[in-house]
């Protein structure tokens, strides 16, 4: 009576937000999920969680978005959070170059722990702070290109690009999934390791798909 609330043909995608401490991960999420911004938000300890829906091709697509702690100490414990993620936002702060330099470590972390192919976007947050910018748009872009990621600069404070960024990742996951569904039979064997829960109910409604970035 309680365990099949997620019935129907809706899609549920798990997305994680990662990046160094205090780059604005939590505020990106609350801006997207609740259109709120808190200039003094506390450090996230462990993990937090929000859901947000959008409609693509007349279908409701639900994103389950996980916001994780930034400090290295938590990485071992947070590995469970990556499980089943099909999308990721890797965030840095454009005013602190160390957070940009650590993007590579976050990508490694993601690759190590994710059990499927993940639609990834690099996010340079706090683009409202142009006057103290430390990482140029070009640097962000070229890193994204070399790593095969989407790229966008955002501001959780003034909302710039926040919705766009999340929706772009969600659309990408969706399109990868639909594409794969069309070919699912032929790809099934080959992609059996790239599994993702396409949640219909909470049981193993598992389908296979692969997604490439772009």
């Amino acid at each position, binding site marked *: 009576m309680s365990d099949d609330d997620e019935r129907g043909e809706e899609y549920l995608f798990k997305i994680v937000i990662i990046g160094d401490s205090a780059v604005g991960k939590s505020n990106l999420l609350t801006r997207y999920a609740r259109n709120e911004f*808190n200039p003094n938000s*506390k450090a996230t300890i462990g993990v937090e969680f929000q859901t947000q829906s959008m409609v693509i091709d007349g279908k409701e697509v639900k994103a389950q978005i996980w916001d994780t*702690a930034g400090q290295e100490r938590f990485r071992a414990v947070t590995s469970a959070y990556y499980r089943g993620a099909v999308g990721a936002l890797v965030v840095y702060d454009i005013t602190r170059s160390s957070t940009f330099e650590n993007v590579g470590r976050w990508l490694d972390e993601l690759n190590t722990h994710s059990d499927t192919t993940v639609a990834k976007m690099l996010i340079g947050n706090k683009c409202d702070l142009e006057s103290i910018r430390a990482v140029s748009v070009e640097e962000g872009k070229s890193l994204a290109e070399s790593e095969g990621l989407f790229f966008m600069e955002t501001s959780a404070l003034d909302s710039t690009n926040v919705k766009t960024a999340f929706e772009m990742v969600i659309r990408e996951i969706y399109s990868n999934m639909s594409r794969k569904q069309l070919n699912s039979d032929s790809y099934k064997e080959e992609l059996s390791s790239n599994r993702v829960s396409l949640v219909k109910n909470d049981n193993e409604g598992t389908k296979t798909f692969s997604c490439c970035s772009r």
Partner: protein
Amino acid sequence: MAKKGIPEWLNSSLWSSSPPPPPIDDRLLRNPPATSVTPPIVERPPLSPSPSAISTAPAPPLPARPPSKSEINDLQNGTGNDGAGIDSPAAASSVEDVSRKAQVVAELSKKVIDLKELRKIASQGLPDDAGIRSLVWKLLLGYLSPDRSLWSSELAKKRSQYKQFKEELLMNPSEVTRKMDKSKGGDSNDPKIESPGALSRSEITHEDHPLSLGTTSLWNNFFKDTEVLEQIDRDVMRTHPDMHFFSGDSAVAKANQDALKNVLTIFAKLNPGIRYVQGMNEILAPIYYIFKNDPDKGNAAFAESDAFFCFVELMSGFRDNFCQQLDNSVVGIRYTITRLSLLLKHHDEELWRHLEVTTKINPQFYAFRWITLLLTQEFNFVESLHIWDTLLSDPEGPQETLLRICCAMLILLRRRLLAGDFTSNLKLLQNYPPSNISHMLYVADKLRSK
């Protein structure tokens, strides 16, 4: 509904508020009418600001009654406030509350305090009167010995030790080497001997210099520290952003932030295996707040050093949760969370099964923060102080007590949780609803293994 596997007392009248309509809402469940049963833990009613025997200073630092949500606008609990969580059966219990306060005061005025007795009283919750909690916590954490006659010398010793830590650990390497040279060379290093007008400068040796990578290099360690210091700085700035005491640009807030930074920095340097882990600021904050608001100005002035030692003491019981190397050991955080899970299974298997088997909620997703931060984020500030009274005073120790309270938190939401799916349950547990804390502690106490 099968109630198998649920202990007898869960079905007692306490749970189903006895008057006719059975409760549909957890809130009702958690607020048994005061008339139906006599709750062993009495609600904290408004206290008349009676003169304290400990101190006669005015202005109690804390609201002398359960805070309404508007008083402490806690971010975690600010949403979905039902307002029903904290009302108190005022008049009836105020007598008991006053008498409990009298008990504490009487115990504290003994020449040698009976810690066992004090624990018993404190575990029922301490009055929010200024000064009492500050003193009791110091005793419970072993910072003050039960023998009053030793207090002044003990405090003097500790406070001067802290001053020394500050001098040794909060200086940059130039200052350290300069100081070492001074003590080594004695008078020969007297700046007066140097050529007049030249600024005294510290010698850069071959063993140590700003570009040294040696592990014993003060400079290398100094730069490694910078990362930690920045992290501490960022987190201290966002400690209780809703409280003027901690947050904002006022001189008071700045001074308090500096004190928190000092304590965390010194702790990090003295504990290189753990250093600073995000969230330690949240554990330090209540201790420092209580000490700083001690109406005894002499104590308040040393809030920083007293808080340091009490923080160290408290952390000694919990430090393993912060240690990444121990994550997979039997003392690390993962195992602690597993113990919570086992405790729930033991007391309420139906709920355990629903959470972990049916809805597949990994307890790490909510209990990690509950446990590492000692419940400071799940309730408003004043409520967490009351929880800490129990945590610190329970003879079984803070960790066991904490796990029992966490287990009670789950059981108290059982109806909602049993009706919920993964998403709604996890949201509920990550944003724990406003609750009757006394009742929660009462339920936790019932979970004690015989």
